[in-house]
């Protein structure tokens, strides 16, 4: 009897606890905006930022550069520099800095000293910045007066305004902070001039930003932002639905269901990625041009893109994404043609097919692509053996040219050289492509200023790749964001990057 009573009491207590649940799950405060990002940051030092896009959403909240892209476009507008004068020979630029700009955490006012320090340290061999190459054309920085600074270059830096200054390494850091904290510590305790300052960083858990009350520009509407690294798309979707996230992404296949859901708003832009299937030219079977061409005709790219991106992305026909000024708009679109493939194979002496070892990283999209390729290739008698490699091992093996074929993606920036330079070099050139004509084109492109001539050079480079047929271009992907309907996500750049300081709660 007593036992039964006790059980009853326990059940009632549990029930009451259940009623408390809605209080815990997805506490919606309009004080903090929770944004999901793909991966965690590795450092907050802008000179050491690595991947083009990964940290930019956060970094652009913390820092400013001399100039910036106007939010939502690629136009260059003043940021910390109010105006500038370019010398007639194009080798130096004088910047007139804004007055009264304060650094975070009480590190004082931004002056020409900080600009000089920020850029010259990029060249310091002791610091070993991975971005050193971007700044090699800089000779030195001269301080004209407290708010005027002159950048002097050895040779014309054509991408100075288009992709150097507005991006990561162009951000201005506090000289005082870097010198007193030291390089390592600064990477964890950034001091910039941006609208937000760092509140806390727990690796792989969150990055929390707090509005900077002494910001020189327009005060952002949202007080706190938390960036949560979430690797799995499905986790992101679940967290959006439970209300634990305000802004995130979904897997492509669920894009439509979020788009139709009135609780969410979706924003989509074509990404600046390029996925391609690469063939290694340094050893059989793909040392033979005909076999590479045959493979190109065997794969049904449209179907592959539809399968792996669920209709949210278009196929790619060349390495550069459309929207970039040097995009080769007339690139040929290769349709599946098994007959042609077979005849090419016959020509190359493999009428009965051949085997291809295909390495892929353990990602969703690549897995689907690989399956489709395998099925397609089989129709031409090509036997594709798929080997999924964990990402570290994949990169190592692919870069060494250990496989016959691989699926890889790189991310572009607005500067075409950024992505095309790898195939003229030794590292991150998985196909082991060595072509003197291509290499000289790439070298030329870096120094040419005239946009028409540049365009021709880069189109020629793309044509060369097409001729040598070592890549089957797949897609450029899509970048999209999903936000709760009570969140105004703010402005989004053409490549899908968000500007969180322009966001607000409705």
């Amino acid at each position: 009897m007593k036992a039964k009573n006790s059980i009853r009491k326990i059940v009632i207590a549990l029930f009451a606890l259940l009623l408390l649940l809605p209080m815990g799950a997805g506490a919606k405060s309009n004080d903090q905006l929770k944004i999901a990002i793909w991966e965690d940051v590795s450092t907050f030092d802008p000179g050491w930022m690595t991947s083009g896009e990964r940290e930019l959403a956060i970094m652009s909240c913390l820092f400013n550069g001399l100039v910036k892209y106007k939010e939502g476009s690629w136009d260059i507008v003043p940021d910390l520099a109010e105006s500038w004068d370019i010398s007639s020979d194009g080798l130096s630029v004088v910047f007139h800095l804004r007055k009264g700009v304060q650094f975070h955490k009480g590190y004082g006012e931004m002056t020409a000293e900080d600009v000089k320090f920020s850029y010259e340290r990029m060249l310091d061999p002791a610091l070993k910045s991975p971005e050193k190459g971007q700044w090699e054309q800089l000779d030195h920085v001269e301080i004209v007066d407290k708010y005027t600074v002159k950048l002097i270059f050895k040779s014309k830096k054509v991408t100075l305004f288009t992709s150097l200054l507005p991006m990561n390494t162009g951000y201005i850091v506090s000289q005082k902070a870097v010198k007193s904290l030291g390089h390592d510590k600064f990477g964890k305790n950034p001091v910039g001039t941006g609208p937000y300052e760092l509140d806390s960083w727990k690796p792989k858990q969150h990055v929390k930003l707090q509005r900077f009350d002494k910001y020189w520009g327009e005060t952002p509407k949202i007080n706190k932002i938390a960036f949560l690294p979430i690797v799995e798309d499905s986790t992101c979707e679940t967290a959006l639905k439970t209300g634990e996230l305000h802004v995130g992404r979904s897997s492509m296949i669920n894009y439509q269901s979020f788009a139709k859901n009135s609780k969410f708003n979706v924003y989509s832009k074509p990404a600046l990625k390029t996925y391609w299937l690469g063939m290694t030219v340094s050893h059989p079977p793909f040392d033979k041009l005909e076999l590479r061409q045959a493979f190109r005709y065997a794969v049904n790219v449209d179907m592959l893109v539809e399968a792996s991106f669920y209709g949210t992305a278009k196929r790619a026909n060349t390495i550069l994404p459309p929207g970039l000024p040097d995009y080769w708009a007339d690139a040929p679109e290769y349709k599946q043609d098994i007959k042609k493939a077979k005849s090419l194979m016959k020509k190359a002496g493999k009428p009965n097919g051949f085997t291809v070892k295909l390495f892929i990283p353990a990602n969703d999209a690549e897995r689907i692509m690989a399956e489709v390729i395998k099925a397609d290739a089989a129709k031409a008698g090509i036997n594709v053996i798929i080997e999924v490699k964990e990402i570290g091992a994949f990169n190592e093996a692919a870069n060494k040219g250990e496989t016959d074929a691989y699926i890889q993606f790189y991310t572009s920036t607005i500067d075409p050289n950024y992505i095309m330079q790898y195939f003229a070099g030794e590292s991150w050139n998985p196909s082991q492509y060595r072509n003197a004509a291509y290499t000289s084109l790439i070298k030329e492109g870096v120094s040419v200023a005239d946009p028409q001539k540049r365009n021709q050079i880069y189109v020629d480079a793309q044509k060369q790749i097409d001729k040598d047929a070592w890549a089957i271009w797949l897609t450029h992907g899509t970048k999209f964001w999903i936000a709760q309907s009570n969140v105004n996500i703010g402005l989004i750049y053409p490549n899908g990057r968000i500007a969180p300081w322009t966001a607000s709660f409705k």
Partner: protein
Amino acid sequence: MGVSHHGQRALNKFKFVHHALLCGGKSGPPHDMAVIKTKIKEGSKIMLQYSFKRVLWVFPTLIGVLLLLFSLTYFLPGDPATAILGPRATPELIEEINSRLHLDRSMPVRLGYYLKGIAQGDLGTSVWSGHSVSSLMMEALGHTAMLAVTTLAVAAAIGIILGAFGAIRQDTPISGVVTVASLMGVALPDFVAALLLMLVFCVKIPILPAIGAGEGFWDMIVHLILPATALGIGWVGYLARLTHESMVDVLEADYIRTARAFAIPQKSIAYVYALKNAIIPTITVLGLGVGKLLGGAVFVEIIFSRPGLGKLIVDAVYARDFPVLQGGILVATVLFVLANLLADISYGFVNPQIQYD
């Protein structure tokens, strides 16, 4: 160290616990009826000797662990720079990171550097974030410990209560509940349970959080509900059966019947004698559960994106973050060794008839 047995009959009585120990407690709840009696510690002196020897044995074990750990990281293909930076890793940078971590040296040299670091109290720095490995691990350990303790506490509470009720009131359907619970615990390993729970409570009816550990007391509790349930399902059934069976046998023993004959109230019999005797083997088994819990915690932490030791280690494998990987596995292993040590020693208290070698 091996444990030899002395007499098959004594062995059978401790079969339940003995079985769990022999199979290392790794393979899930056995379904056995065991008779467990505790005798007054006769051989306490022998036991002290055994305990001392057992503690000494920890040191060569740890050395061996370090050797194995380093062999594994030595043969792990890939380097952190490439894993993290991808195409942006210039050859100079790769070389710089590799030489900083001594990745280009032979294994004994690397081990030497690492030991030197440990002697100075420095476990290294994460290649990924630059944070010190020790700070990362303290935090991760805290979260995993919180998960483990909550899981065990709740599972033990529910399990022991269920088992006790079932033993005292053998006519209620409680024993049916216990059987079903233990069957469910067997059928659904932690990560399968975690996935199903997430499916029901985060996806289908989105009422519970799916990510993170939460902030603030109640938020953290709410964030613990699903992970602890997933981890704890197996334990509830197991502990219930354990308590049930040990209590049933003890209740039937002579001295209990004698107490009843003297009309000592039923409640005090149950709570004072029986439960007390049943707790000790339960504790031994719980000690063994540390390893099983850590294994399960790895999946639960990844599925629910909770910070913790398991997630830390797995992320470090993907990113080839060697310092974190080594530090994390080392800590997990040391914990494991200590848990085994405690289990072995406490097992001695359970069965003083064991001969210690």
